[in-house]
């Protein structure tokens, strides 16, 4: 037993293991880059980097039957290798101080990235000029939200993550006086208007939006820019039996997707028709149970800000270089209001100058402003990426440690080399 452990330690601290892991890292990074051409960044990432083992490759039409360690496995193994080497092999000497510092820096980086991977949360917030929000929204995930009046301008919200909606699932929540049964669920869907004169099949449900729209299932998207818009057919059951079927779709509760639909109908049928279609698409759906009215919709998952602080977009500025449409500068003037601390101040957020506040960081992300926006009659708006990442400082520390370590080490070499030459 002791012997096996010794061999294990010997392998774990060996330089050969480092070399093998580095070689695998090169392979997996390369393969993961190529795969992005067909798979898209998002899928390639989860297939190769956020993965323990990769079974078989399918690159640009070539199928290669191999098993490779994934990014997680390589990262964790490198980390173990490094830490073990530090504990067992490295002896602290002044001459080796640089090497040790550099490796410690790599450990900090790897650990930091591992933590980021587990802890960091990203969301976005879109604000039109003058609008105030105290939440951000997930860019990819949806939730089925049930809203009910709680008096004095307050609302009760029960949100069910879309991930929990599977065909056949039965959902009960102590705060809801009814049960939800998911009849069907599509991860991605596209809407079609049920024009009265066309040959339509029977509607998926006889209530609400389903009377005017069909939502067809479509293949899940892999690209970074497109997102999957889910649709579910649910039935709501109270104690005394079913209350009916409804279709809930991201297309009706996500402002971004609604805008897409509006643009497409404006192009096809003009602004007036588009407005009518949108009105039907976004008509609230609700159910009354026990005298309480519950409005429900499928919307992007919301993340409420800590302390209920809010953010208002005061002004969005978008400069372009003269005579071109190349963006030169975007900036958003926002107002941050925190009822808890009584804070109320204006902040300028622009590219490379995010706002860090209450553990969240707000980055200028997209913008619809400037002359072109005003000419098209749209209200200027700004989108911020909101990131919660408690370990954001680790790369800074790691970088400094490695840079210093390597510099010290190479200085030793260089000085040694020079003095040898002098001695000659």
């Amino acid at each position, binding site marked *: 037993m002791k012997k096996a452990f010794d061999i294990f330690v010997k392998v774990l601290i060996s*330089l*050969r293991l*480092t*070399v093998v892991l*580095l*070689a695998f*890292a*090169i392979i997996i*990074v*390369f393969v*993961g*880059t*190529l795969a*992005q*051409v067909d798979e898209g*960044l998002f899928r*390639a*990432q989860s297939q190769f*980097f956020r993965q323990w083992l990769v079974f078989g490759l399918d690159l640009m039409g070539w199928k290669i039957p191999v098993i490779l360690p994934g990014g997680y496995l390589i990262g964790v193994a490198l980390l173990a290798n490094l830490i073990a080497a530090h504990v067992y092999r490295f002896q602290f000497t002044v001459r080796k101080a640089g090497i040790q510092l550099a490796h410690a820096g790599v450990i900090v*980086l790897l650990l930091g*990235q591992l933590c*980021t991977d587990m802890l*960091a949360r*990203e969301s976005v917030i879109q604000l039109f000029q003058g609008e105030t929000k105290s939440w951000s929204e997930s860019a990819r995930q949806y939730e089925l939200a049930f809203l009910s009046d709680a008096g004095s301008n307050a609302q009760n919200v029960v949100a069910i993550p879309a991930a929990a909606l599977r065909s056949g699932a039965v959902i009960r929540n102590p705060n809801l006086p009814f049960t939800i049964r998911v009849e069907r669920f599509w991860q991605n869907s596209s809407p079609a208007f049920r024009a009265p004169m066309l040959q339509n099949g029977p509607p998926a449900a006889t209530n609400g939006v389903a009377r005017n729209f069909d939502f067809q299932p479509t293949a899940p998207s892999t690209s970074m820019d497109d997102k999957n818009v889910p649709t579910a057919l649910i039935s709501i059951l109270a104690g005394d039996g079913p209350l009916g079927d409804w279709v809930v779709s991201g297309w009706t509760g996500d402002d971004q997707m609604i805008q897409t639909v509006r643009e497409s109908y404006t192009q096809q049928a003009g602004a007036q028709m588009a407005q009518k279609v949108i009105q039907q698409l976004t008509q609230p759906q609700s159910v009354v149970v026990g005298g309480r009215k519950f409005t429900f919709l499928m919307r992007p998952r919301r993340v409420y800000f800590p302390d209920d602080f809010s953010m208002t977009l005061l002004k969005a500025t978008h400069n*372009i*270089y*003269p*005579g*071109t449409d*190349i*963006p*030169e*500068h*975007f900036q958003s003037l926002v107002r941050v209001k925190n009822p808890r601390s009584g804070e109320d101040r204006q902040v300028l957020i622009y*590219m*490379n*100058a*995010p706002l860090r506040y209450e553990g969240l*960081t707000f*980055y*200028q*992300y997209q913008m619809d402003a400037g002359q072109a926006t005003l000419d098209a009659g749209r209200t200027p708006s700004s989108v911020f*990426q*909101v*990131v919660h990442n408690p370990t*954001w400082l680790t*790369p*800074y520390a*790691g*970088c400094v440690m*490695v*840079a210093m370590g*390597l*510099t010290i*080490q*190479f200085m030793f*070499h*260089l000085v040694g*080399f020079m003095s040898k*030459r002098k001695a000659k």
Partner: protein
Amino acid sequence: MNKKFFQKWIPPFLAAAIGLWFVVQLERPREETFAFSKFGGLPVIADGRLKPMDTLARDSLLQIDARQTLNLQPWLGWPKTPKTIPATEWLANVMMRGDTANRWPVFRLDNPDLITFLKLPGKDLARHEDGQHYSWDQIAPSFEALDRENTRVANVEAAHRDAYERAVLKAHDQLVLYASLQNTLQPQDAGDWKTQLADYQAMIPAGVAAVEAREAGKKYDQAVFNAFGNDLQEFDFMRQLGTPLVIPPENPPGQWQRMGAVLMDAAKGRPIPPMVTDYANLGAALRAGDADGFNSAVADLRALFIPAFSHALAHTRAEVFFNRMQPFYNAMIIYVLAGLLAIFSWFNLSETLRRCAVWLIALALFIHTTGLIYRIALQGRPPVTNLYSSAIFIGWGAVILGLVLEKFHKNGIGAVVASGIGFVTLIIAQNLALDGDTMEMMRAVLNNNFWLATHVVVVTLGYASTFVAGFLGLIYVLRGVFTRTLDAGTGRSLARMIYGIVCFATLFSFVGTVLGGIWADQSWGRFWGWDPKENGALIIVLWNALVLHMRWGGMIRERGLALAAIGGNIVTSWSWFGVNMLGIGLHSYGFTEAAFKWLSLFVASQLLFVALGSIPLRLWKSAA
């Protein structure tokens, strides 16, 4: 006279002679008739920045014809000398004498399928067709078909377009660019623009009255209404085509305007600025073949920029001088010369040749550096802002590293590395310049000098040093296999150089890559996003770390180190160019056929050298 004397004096003498050759070229060309070079000094705003007509001319011609001068008789092969004209003369004609310029064979098309699609004649020297260069008038009958094809191809995902489809997009871009130049100063195909302009000016009150009367449902002069409407339609087209901005505001803080916009504003009662009339005079003189009139119109135009836009004139003068200096092209030629001398020095071991090479490299580096600093000053940016300038900077860094190696080892190896990489990177830069303005404006995300100066510069130095190590590896293999010059001492010294440079490369590529991550964290909130370019840089770091660890672990020695360093060339070229060709990610600059071909060739050649270096030692000439 002894050998020492030659050794001491020939190298500086040679460098001085070549330096003189460079300086002599800087003199402005003498123009007996039309002062097109003065026309080239007029300021315009194109691609979002102030530049001289000269730069607009050269960049446009590069994009359309892949040359900086126009060959009017491309069908004439060696040894006949075809007639060529400078870019500014071509531009002046496109802008103001379209009927002539439209017959010049300026569009370079390489894709045979596209040539067939456009129904263009193939190579037929007797009919003055070289099968590659075509005029606007020749392509014109197929415009509609090309436009439809372009719309179709634009909807194909970039990563999935084939060679023909990419050629369609490129040809379409070339034609759009040409059309925007045609409409920069006057409506395209305007015959006598000076008269048309005067008529338009005179017609404005009557024209406005006719429009107003028509809107009010009253009687109006149909002829005036039509003529006025036609003019305005033409001007609106000029405005919408994205033409360069040629009319400065009356006072500096205002906006520059397109000619079309100014002409349309005149209908609203705005006065027509004198510059418009002067440009019309310029065009009239050019059409009439009146050189004196042309030159005095250019002088009038220049005078209008003073005093409010004196700074613009100063900027364009500096840039015109820079264009004429062609520092990178000239440095490239000197690097070739130096490289040849240095290689010869290995064989007869002549110290004089080696010293000549070092002196020439120093001269070329001086010119290279001058160009680099000049660019920094013109652009107000750190040295690396795009792929083009990265090539120039990688070359610059590698040349300095090579010279440092040469200083320490004095065996001609550093000199070959310096001149070799200097030459290759500048050739690459020459080809990248075909994409248009090399001093393009930085998009909002990149519009940050701090990160451009740190991340980009450091990561580029990482590329440069990895290439230097790889080049040393190549020298090790080539000298070892094919010559007897790789003795034990040289081998050891090469290995030591490679090791030192790989250490250096590790430091720079690591710090550069992490700084890039930190920049991304500052602008998007994510340190690492697995973007292809990020991954490419990461692979360089991993590769260098791998090489160092293999060396430390004794898994590779002298030869292995050399071979591994050659592998570094592959990895670096992948990161530098390969990832951009995938057509995805944040750093995707588009795919060019030629670049892909060269990259594949380069990678294949490096693999070949690794294989060559792996043959048993007894087959090496140096081992015998």
